[in-house]
């Protein structure tokens, strides 16, 4: 086949049309991504608004949180961010962004968890909110009642395996792992800071 006949062929036309469509779509999506990008600050504000029922709350990085980098694995969870609440009415609360492992099909659920503290010890779980997930088709079946259960059933111990949400048992396992991870992380952090103060 000569070069001229190739450029006049249907095959060449197909390649050009397909590549043009792919290129145009890529450019379009790049522009849209810049327009609709959800920043970390926006996600944090959304989480705070949900966790504190729209109340205005300010936070700052928790002690040692700047060393988290890409995350710190605690049990079956990865701690992504840790902040402490600085507003007077909720002072002492820790806000933990944590990824729970072992979800459906090996996926994960990332949650924001409020851990309440008192006198350098964990006092309870304030609230839990789902931030994002990977491959959890039935995440919509996680009810608010199930999430509220973490606040209501706090005993100072890790949450047991029996705490699952009907219809989304794997996703609820990942959420339970996330909350347990957040509890362990804050407990360890408070212990370390207590020891440091003691010394």
């Amino acid at each position, binding site marked *: 086949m000569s070069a001229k006949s190739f450029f006049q062929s249907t095959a060449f036309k197909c390649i050009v*049309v397909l590549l043009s469509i792919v290129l145009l779509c890529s450019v379009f999506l790049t522009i849209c991504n810049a327009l*609709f*990008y*959800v920043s970390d600050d926006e996600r944090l504000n959304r989480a705070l608004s949900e966790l504190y029922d729209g109340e205005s709350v300010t936070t700052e990085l928790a002690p040692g949180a700047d060393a988290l980098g890409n995350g710190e694995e605690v049990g079956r969870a990865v701690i992504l961010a840790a902040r402490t609440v600085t507003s007077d009415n909720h002072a002492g609360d820790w806000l933990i962004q944590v990824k729970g492992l072992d979800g459906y099909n090996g996926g994960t659920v990332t949650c924001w968890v409020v851990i309440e503290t008192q006198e350098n010890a964990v006092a309870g779980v304030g609230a839990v909110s789902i931030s994002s*997930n990977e*491959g959890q088709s039935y995440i919509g079946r996680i009810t608010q009642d199930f999430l509220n259960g973490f606040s209501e059933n706090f005993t100072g111990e890790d949450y047991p395996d029996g705490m699952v949400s009907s219809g989304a048992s794997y996703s609820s396992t990942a959420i339970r792992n996330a909350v347990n991870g957040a509890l362990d992380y804050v407990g360890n952090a408070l212990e370390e800071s207590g020891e440091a103060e003691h010394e």
Partner: protein
Amino acid sequence: MNKYKKIFLDGVIFSNPTFVLVLGTCPTLGLISSAMSAMSMGLCIIVILTLSNVLISAMRKVIPNEVRIPCYIVLIATLVTLLRMVLEKFLPDIYSALGGFLALIVVNCIILGRAEAFANKHTVPEAAMDGLANGIGFTLALTCMGIVCEVLGSGSLFGAKLWDFSIALFAQPAGSFIIFGLSIALFTKVMDSVTGNARSKRQAEEARRALEARRGTAAKEA
């Protein structure tokens, strides 16, 4: 009958994508346990189906026949990605409620089916009407089944608690499958009786005319 009215009625009723063509079964079974999720998915399908039909119809003379399917998939995937971005930015609750099913719209056979069967053979306004009608048909079907499943499976309606009684099976895909099958049976029965009645009336009318014509001929002969 006006052709747009015919396209609309075909999409919503006579060729309903869920009850008649039985397309898009994956999100149907996955999402109808909650009326709100079902309706949200339906609304997303309306948007994607209408836009994809418009785009594909507008580009039907440019896209070579040999690469039409890859081209359709790229266009549909672009629209779905755009929808995901918009939902995550402005409606994060719906975005998380739909979960993985939102991304699966790319391979939803209603979208590709209407692109292949209708949009690439018709003008842009007709394709838009077809997308809109099929999307509405899908949304109505999913919402109706979602209401039944949620009331039976969770004892609530659009998240509002009605009573404590519930049958857990209907909150699962297995229960959704039963409701789906019963809905198809009911829809087919209703459609059969409606179209059967119309057919009977038409036949009676034709018989009456034939009788009158025979009487007329007999009177003339007499």
